[in-house]
C-alpha cells in the first residue's frame, strides 16, 4: 500500500512537471483549429468540433507568409552553414592550443545582450546601403550561431583522443590534413549537435530581424509579431501562424532530442 501511494505521488509529480508544456502547446493547436466564435467562447471550448482549416488558409491569403518562410529558411541555413564553416576549425584550433583567452571571448559574446550589437551595426549597414536585403540579418545572426558552434566544438574536440592525429602528423601529414582527414570525420556527431542547436536558435531569433528587416525581408518571428500589432486581433489566424513558426523547431527537437540534450548539458548554450 505504501509503495503504491509512493508511486502515485511520483506519477502526480511527473504529470505536474509536463502539464504546463502540454497545456500551452495543445491550446495553441486548439486555437488554430477553431473558428473565431469558438475561440472567444467562455467557458472556453477545448476540442475543435469540427476542426477547421480556415485559419491556416487565411494566414497565407492575408500575409506574405511564403516569402517570410523563405526568408527564415535562407537566413537560418546561411547563418548556420557559415558558422559551421568557420566555427568548426576555430573550435579545433582553440582546443588544440588550449587557448582559454579565446574561449573567454566566445563567452563574452554569449553574455552580451543582442541589442548592444545592433546600434552600431544598424548604422554601419545604413552607410553600406545594405538595409532592405537579407545580408545584414544573416551577418547579425552569426553573432548567435558562431559562438554556439565554437563552444560546442571546443568541448567536443577536447574530448577526442589526440593519438590518431599525432600518428598522422608523424607520418608527415600537415596539420590541415590531420584536421581534414582524421579529426573532422571523428567530429561528425559534434558537428551534428552544433548544427541543430545553431539552426534552432537562429530560427527562433527575433530581435535582429525586427530591427534590421524591411517589409520584404522579415523573418517568421517578426512577421508573426507584426500580425499582433497591426491587424485586428483575431485569435485563430494568430495561433495558426504561431504554430507554423514553431512547429519545425519542435519537430526537430523531438527527432534529435538525444543530440540536443547532449549539446545543451555540455555547454549551456543559448542564443540571443
Amino acid at each position, binding site marked *: 500500500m505504501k509503495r503504491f501511494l509512493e508511486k502515485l505521488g511520483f506519477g502526480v509529480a*511527473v504529470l505536474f*512537471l*509536463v502539464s504546463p*508544456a502540454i497545456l*500551452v*502547446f495543445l*491550446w495553441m493547436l486548439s*486555437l488554430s483549429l477553431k473558428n473565431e466564435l469558438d475561440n472567444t467562447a*467562455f*467557458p*472556453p471550448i477545448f476540442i475543435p468540433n469540427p476542426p477547421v482549416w480556415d485559419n491556416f488558409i487565411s494566414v497565407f491569403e492575408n500575409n506574405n507568409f511564403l516569402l517570410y518562410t523563405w526568408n527564415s529558411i535562407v537566413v537560418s541555413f546561411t547563418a548556420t552553414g557559415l558558422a559551421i564553416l*568557420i*566555427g568548426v*576549425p*576555430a573550435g*579545433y*584550433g*582553440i582546443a*588544440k*592550443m588550449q*587557448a582559454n583567452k*579565446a574561449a573567454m*571571448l*566566445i563567452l*563574452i559574446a*554569449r*553574455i552580451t*545582450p543582442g*541589442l*548592444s*550589437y*545592433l*546600434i*552600431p*551595426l544598424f548604422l554601419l549597414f545604413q552607410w553600406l546601403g545594405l538595409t532592405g536585403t537579407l545580408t545584414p540579418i544573416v551577418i547579425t545572426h552569426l553573432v548567435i550561431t558562431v559562438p554556439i558552434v565554437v563552444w560546442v566544438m571546443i568541448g567536443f574536440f577536447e574530448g577526442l583522443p589526440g593519438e590518431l592525429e599525432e600518428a598522422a*602528423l*608523424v607520418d*608527415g601529414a*600537415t*596539420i590541415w590534413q590531420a584536421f581534414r582527414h582524421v579529426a573532422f570525420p571523428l567530429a561528425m556527431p559534434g558537428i551534428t549537435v552544433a548544427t541543430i542547436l545553431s539552426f534552432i536558435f537562429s530560427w*527562433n531569433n*527575433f*530581435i535582429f530581424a525586427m530591427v534590421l528587416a524591411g517589409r520584404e525581408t522579415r523573418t*517568421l*518571428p517578426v512577421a508573426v509579431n507584426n500580425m*499582433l500589432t497591426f491587424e485586428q486581433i483575431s*485569435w485563430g489566424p494568430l495561433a495558426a501562424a*504561431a504554430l507554423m*513558426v*514553431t512547429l519545425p523547431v519542435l519537430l*526537430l527537437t*523531438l527527432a534529435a*532530442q538525444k543530440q*540536443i*540534450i547532449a549539446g*545543451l*548539458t555540455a555547454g*549551456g548554450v*543559448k542564443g*540571443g
Partner: protein
Amino acid sequence: MSGNAATHSAPLAPAVATPRRRNYARRYWMFVVPAGVVVISVILFPWLFTLFMSTHEWKIGGGHHFVGLDNYRKLFTDERFLWSMVRTLYFTALAVIGPMVLGVAAALVFNRNFPLRGLARTIFILPMMATPVAVALVWTMMFHPQLGVLNWLLSQFGIPPSMWVYDAKTVIPTLVMVEIWHWTPLVMLITLGGLASLPQDPYEAAKIDGASPLQSFWHITLPLLAPFLVVALIIRTIDALKAFDTIYVITQGGPGTSSETINIFLYLQGFAYYNMGYASAVVVVFFTMIVGLASLLLWTRKRVKA
C-alpha cells in the same frame, strides 16, 4: 602556408615531448583566423564603436557632436532609467529563483527510472526550444482577463480572476511565469548532468547510518551538486537580465512603463526615439552590470570549488 607548416612539423627527436607539443600547438592559430575575423568585425568593432557613440549626442538623421560624459550623467538622473534598473533586478531575482527551485526538483524526478521517462523528458524540454515570439502570442491570448483560458482555469479551483499582464502590480510576476516556463528545462538539464556524475558510496554509507532521504539530499546531494548549481545560476542570471522577446511581445513595457526593463528601455531609446548616443550609454552601463554580476557569481563558483 600549410606546406611551410609541414616542413617545420617534421619530427626530429620526439624524445622531449612537451616543447614539441607546444610548437605544434602554436601553429593551430590559422584555424582560428576566420572566426577571429568574424568576432572582431561583428562583436569587437561594435563594442568600440558603442563606446565612441556613448560620448556623443547622436540622432539618426540629425547629425552628431561630442558631449563627453553627459549621456552618462543624464542617465543616472533619468528616473525612467533608474526605475527600469530596479524592475530588471526584481524580474531577475524572481526569474532566477523560480527556475532554479523547479529545475532542481524536476532533475530529481527525471533522475529516477520510470516508464515513459524519455518521452516525459522530451516534452519537458520542448518549451526551451520553442520560438519565444510564437509562444508569447499564445500566452497573450491566455492572459486575456475576460476570455482567457487561465482565468477560466483559476475559476475551476475557486480562485478569483487575475488581471495578469494588464495590471501594473501583477505584470512582472506574470512575465516571470512565462520565463519560468521557458527556462526551467535548462536548469533541469544542467542539474541532471550533475546528478549523473554523483558517486554512489556516500549514499550507501548514509543509509547504513540511518539517514532519512531528506537528510541525505541536504547533506550529500546538495553539496556535491553545488558546482553544477552555480553554473546553472550564472547562466540563468545572465539570461534573465537579458530577457527581451517575451516582454516585448506581450507588454512592450506596459501597462504604462510598469514592465519596462533595461533592455526594453534600451530598445525604445535606440530604435523608437533614435537617441543612438544615449542608447549607447545604456548599453555600456547595462553590459558593465551583467559582467559585474557574472564575475561575482564566477567568484562564488571558485569559492564553492575550493
